[in-house]
């Protein structure tokens, strides 16, 4: 930020610096130079003083020199012509007998970021690489990288690269690491520095001499190395074993990452490494620096995705300290929820419930949501706590509790009765939970005796209601309530529909009201079929409850910024990519073909039918239905089982909206698969069979047997033709 009167200051400084009296007095001179640097930091433009500063660099005082160099590096790119004047002095200093002066001059000369510098610095750098003093060599090695970054598009100088590779054997550890860094930058286009067996082993043997920063960097470089044999692999790992327990968190974590990467084929080794590192990781979670604590927590969460049990005995370490910032508390709560087991559930719940009355509403709500998550497994204890919280009559708490109830009822139906009893009490719910409350009323209206009165309040206050979502939810609730308690709600529903159709200005609400109106005209039974769905869906828990993930899922982002920034974002993308991965490659190949299939299929059928997946079907339901129903249709498909991989077949079927439930391995005879799909109100179940001795003339071709509920012959024909064309395409592709 430029200050007022900055021009005056610059002028004054210039006058002072060129004053011979000042120049003669070393202390005063230095003082003025300090003032110049101070102005630089404050953002003042003092580039006009360049000449005076170049003069000031001719001194024996190293502190003054350093200050002047700092100035020069800042303004060199603005004043390239003047900077050239400085270069000659700097080059002279590169031959100074004092290694510190040599290093300083070389390093700063390389820091001048201006075009055309290369020709001046190349010779001193090459000389520096062979300098006796390690300090100068360190500077010279990085100088090579700086030189390359000045002219990124020029050809790589093979001599320098070779020299750098040779310097990997330098006795000074920092020179070694700097060589790796410089090579990495220079050879970026060719994939970076090559870590072959001799280099890898050399680095491993030098590990002990390096300081912690260099260690963690070398460990990162070693990620690139793949040992040839298992014997070598275990040699490498045993060399690194002690670093897993390093006092420096960054070394321990970098070692762990390398272990996870190298031992990707040996899960037992990975597990051992995780166990070893759990102590240092836990220590970072309690470190004095809160930033380090945060990084530790984020990485613990990663580890827990594969090894949920690893930290469960240490659950107390994740209790929140009262002075900790909110973002750390959030992460600790997430971890606590994952760690809950039979032994610690009481203590964890007691801890979490004490956060529910926290000053920060966000934290309180997160704590309530966390209890709600635990309630899916330990519902009784949690419901007591949540019900107790309602008595506080604080808006943000009540609202969070009701929202938690809604989710809970959906995931574990056995808690419905208790929830319904509680909801009776909270008639006037706060703003942001209205929707959740209405949903609960609609779904379980028959169990909540006061439901119609609560709803009446909402219908009466409709004119002042602002939120669209609440209005929509109210419509649905009213219709659902009408279906289970018609006598009490008929009048209310009438008023509501009338208002929404006649007076409501928003199109969405109006349309929704019209939809329900038309539906009700078709009769109550018809409406019931459409509106009431399943009250809960336990199969959803598969989606929400995290499965144990393979370590490889997160190992690649371990010890990077990934886990720290956008924690949720990472999680989502990881899940998506996990789901997509198997089908991704096939999808690309198949997409054009299969599109044709669905589009060209009508030539077999009179009318195009559309298949849909709908809600997933569990194995038990499928089995029960399959046994109950009779085969309606059997047909040979005219083509054998494609020789492509089975997951490709599965992916292809998925594309045309046919879900594969189970299949036998590819080479078994007879080969069977069970699939299902939905189409215009019917559920189609089918069995694919190949090589069945009982079926006539079918040793080559696939036979499909279809069962359906309710019966719709047209849909079966459509389904069969789609199936046929998919197999055709796959066979064409693979042959």
């Amino acid at each position, binding site marked *: 930020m430029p200050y007022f009167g900055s021009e005056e200051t610059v002028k004054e400084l210039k006058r002072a610096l060129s004053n011979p009296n000042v120049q003669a007095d070393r202390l005063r001179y230095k003082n003025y130079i300090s003032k110049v640097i101070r102005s630089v930091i404050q953002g003042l433009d003092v580039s006009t003083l360049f000449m005076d500063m170049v003069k000031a660099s001719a001194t024996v005082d190293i502190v003054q020199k350093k200050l002047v160099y700092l100035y020069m590096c800042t303004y060199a790119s603005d004043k390239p012509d003047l900077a050239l004047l400085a270069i000659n002095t700097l080059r002279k200093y590169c031959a100074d007998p004092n290694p510190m002066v040599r290093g300083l001059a070389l390093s700063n000369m390389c820091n001048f970021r201006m075009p055309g510098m290369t020709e001046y610095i190349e010779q001193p750098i090459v000389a520096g690489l062979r300098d006796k003093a390690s300090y100068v060599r360190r500077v010279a090695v990085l100088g090579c990288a700086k030189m390359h970054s000045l002219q990124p598009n020029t050809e790589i100088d093979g001599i320098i690269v070779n020299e750098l590779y040779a310097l990997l054997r330098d006795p000074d550890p920092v020179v070694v690491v700097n060589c790796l860094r410089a090579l990495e930058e220079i050879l970026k286009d060719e994939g970076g520095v090559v870590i072959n067996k001799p280099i890898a082993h050399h680095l491993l043997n030098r590990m002990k001499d390096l*300081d912690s920063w260099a260690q963690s960097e070398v460990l990162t470089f070693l990620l690139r190395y793949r040992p040839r044999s298992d014997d070598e692999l275990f040699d490498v790992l045993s060399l690194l074993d002690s670093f897993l327990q390093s006092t*420096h968190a960054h070394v321990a974590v970098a070692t762990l990452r390398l272990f996870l990467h190298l031992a990707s084929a040996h899960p037992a080794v990975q597990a051992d490494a995780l166990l070893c590192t759990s102590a240092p990781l836990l220590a970072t979670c309690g470190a004095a620096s809160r930033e380090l604590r945060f990084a530790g927590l984020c990485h613990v969460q990663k580890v827990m995705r594969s090894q949920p049990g690893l930290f469960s005995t240490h659950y107390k370490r994740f209790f929140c300290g009262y002075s900790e910032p909110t973002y750390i508390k959030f992460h600790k709560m997430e971890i606590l929820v994952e760690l809950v087991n039979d032994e610690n559930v009481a203590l964890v719940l007691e801890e979490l419930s004490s956060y529910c009355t926290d*000053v920060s509403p966000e934290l309180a709500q997160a704590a309530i949501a966390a209890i709600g998550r635990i309630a899916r497994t330990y519902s009784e204890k949690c419901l007591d706590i949540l019900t107790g919280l309602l008595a506080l009559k604080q808006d943000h708490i009540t609202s969070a509790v009701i929202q938690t109830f809604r989710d809970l009822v959906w995931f574990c139906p056995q808690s419905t009765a208790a929830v319904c009893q509680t909801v009776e009490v909270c008639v006037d719910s706060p703003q942001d939970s209205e929707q959740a409350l209405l949903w609960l009323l609609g779904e379980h209206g028959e169990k909540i005796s006061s439901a119609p009165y609560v709803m009446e309040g909402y219908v009466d206050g409709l004119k002042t209601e602002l939120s669209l979502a609440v209005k929509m939810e109210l419509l649905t609730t009213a219709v659902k309530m009408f279906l289970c308690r018609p006598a009490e709600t008929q009048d209310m529903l009438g008023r509501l529909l009338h208002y929404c159709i006649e007076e409501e200005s928003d199109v969405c609400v109006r349309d929704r009201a019209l939809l329900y109106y038309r539906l009700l005209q078709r009769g109550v039974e018809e409406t019931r079929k459409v509106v009431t769905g399943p009250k809960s869906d336990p199969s959803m828990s598969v989606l929400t409850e995290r499965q144990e993930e393979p370590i490889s899922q997160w190992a690649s982002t371990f010890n990077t910024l990934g886990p720290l920034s956008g924690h949720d974002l990472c999680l989502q993308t990881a899940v998506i990519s996990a789901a997509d991965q198997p089908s991704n490659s096939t999808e690309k190949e198949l997409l054009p073909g299969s599109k044709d299939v669905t589009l060209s299929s009508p030539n077999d059928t009179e009318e195009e039918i559309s298949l849909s997946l709908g809600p997933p079907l569990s194995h038990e339901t499928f089995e029960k239905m399959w046994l109950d129903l009779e085969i309606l249709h059997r047909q040979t498909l005219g083509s054998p089982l494609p020789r492509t991989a089975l997951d490709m077949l599965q992916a292809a079927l998925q594309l045309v909206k046919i879900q594969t439930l189970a299949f036998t391995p590819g080479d078994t005879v007879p080969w069977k698969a069970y699939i299902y799909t939905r189409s215009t109100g019917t559920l189609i179940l089918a069995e694919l069979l190949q090589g069945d001795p009982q079926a006539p003339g079918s040793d080559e071709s696939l036979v499909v047997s279809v069962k359906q509920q309710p019966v719709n012959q047209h849909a079966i024909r459509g389904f069969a033709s789609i199936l046929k064309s998919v197999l055709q395409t796959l066979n064409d592709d693979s042959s």
Partner: protein
Amino acid sequence: MISQIFILSSKGDHLIYKDFRGEASKDSINVFYERVTALSGDQTPVVMAHKDLHFIHVKQGGLYWVASTKTNPSPFTIIEFLNRLAALTKDYCGSLSEKSVRMNFALIYELLDEMVDFGYIQTTSTDILKNFIQTEAVSSKPFSLFDLSNVGLFGAETQQSKVAPSVAASRPIMSSRGEQGGKNEIFVDVIERLSVVIGSKGVLMKSDIQGEIRIKCFLPTSSEMRIGLNEELSIGKSQLKGYSSAVRVDECRFHQAVKLDEFDTFRILKVCPSQGEQTVMQYQLCDELPCAPPFQLFPSVQKDYVNRVLIFLKLRCDLPPKSTALNVSITVPVPKGSVSMSQELSSPDQTAELQPKNKALLWEIPRFPGGAQLSALFKVDVPGLSSASLLEVGPVSMSFELAKQTCSGLQIRFLRLAPSQTGLSQRWVRYVTHSDSYTIRI
């Protein structure tokens, strides 16, 4: 690799700015400051992204220490490096504050120049750095509350001569000239952070000690030093405790420079301390404290009149009679909507105030001698009080500092320097326990 490093004051003033690679614009300082001040409470400030630039920062001494990078480095490395930079700045400047950084900017630039080149960390060891750092530190007189610990009871000068003034350790490590310079001192601090949760019936639910032995060395040349710990110190959960006197820690880790050949038998650490501050040993102890937790609270919360809550707190300090807890502050959450409070405290040096914004009352006791018991009565007016509101009172959290006291019982038996050094140098051992988090449920 690091693109830029900058240090900002809490108000956003640029104190230090160094661009190592010239790939990010200077404007990014302002971008960072805008972002970090605009964050709401639940957002994570540690890592922030702006276009392709990542900012990683730590907050120490009320200053922002920021590194920006365009690559995806190890967060542990960067955070630990920034912490180390702050620690080194503290070593060289004596203390860590906006003022000291401002006054010593040339020194900090010099440090940064040697520590980082082209964005790569070169070295952070004081032994190497001291050869290159030429600037003299300008020290400012810091104000420290810790001074209180040296004032004896009733103002008498007890053991004054045996106690090092606490400011002595907060001076620059490299003042060769100057009034305090040349004093060969070495401080060994045993610092413990205590975190405790006490359940509603006085049951100890969680107790956890994170401890470290920290050396601050002002000796110009390093020579081997032997630190003797309690001989009966046992490590790990499995070992059976013989008699009650055994001091136990769950696990401990040592600085890589520590030689442990005499540790197993004699519990002696051998180390060549380099100048400045370093942690030689870290240890932790979970769940089994050798002594009673330092404070017990006996609360009673009642509804008085229609709109008034009576909170009666009796606080007992279970430390040995010679020890004292300092700067004790007790935070009690009060029901939402509390408007005013009247209080009855037992001595005039205590204070209490209601903080309606945090819905809490804060009771502060500057000195709390061991074995003493203090009580306080608070009457809080809450309009529209319901009986459920009483549930909002609690959990109580405390913060305090215990000087000359470790909760684990870890002691330093002796501190010996190599024979060549003795006579010239002064050795100090200090113990302090901080409350990391001390929560008592009601």
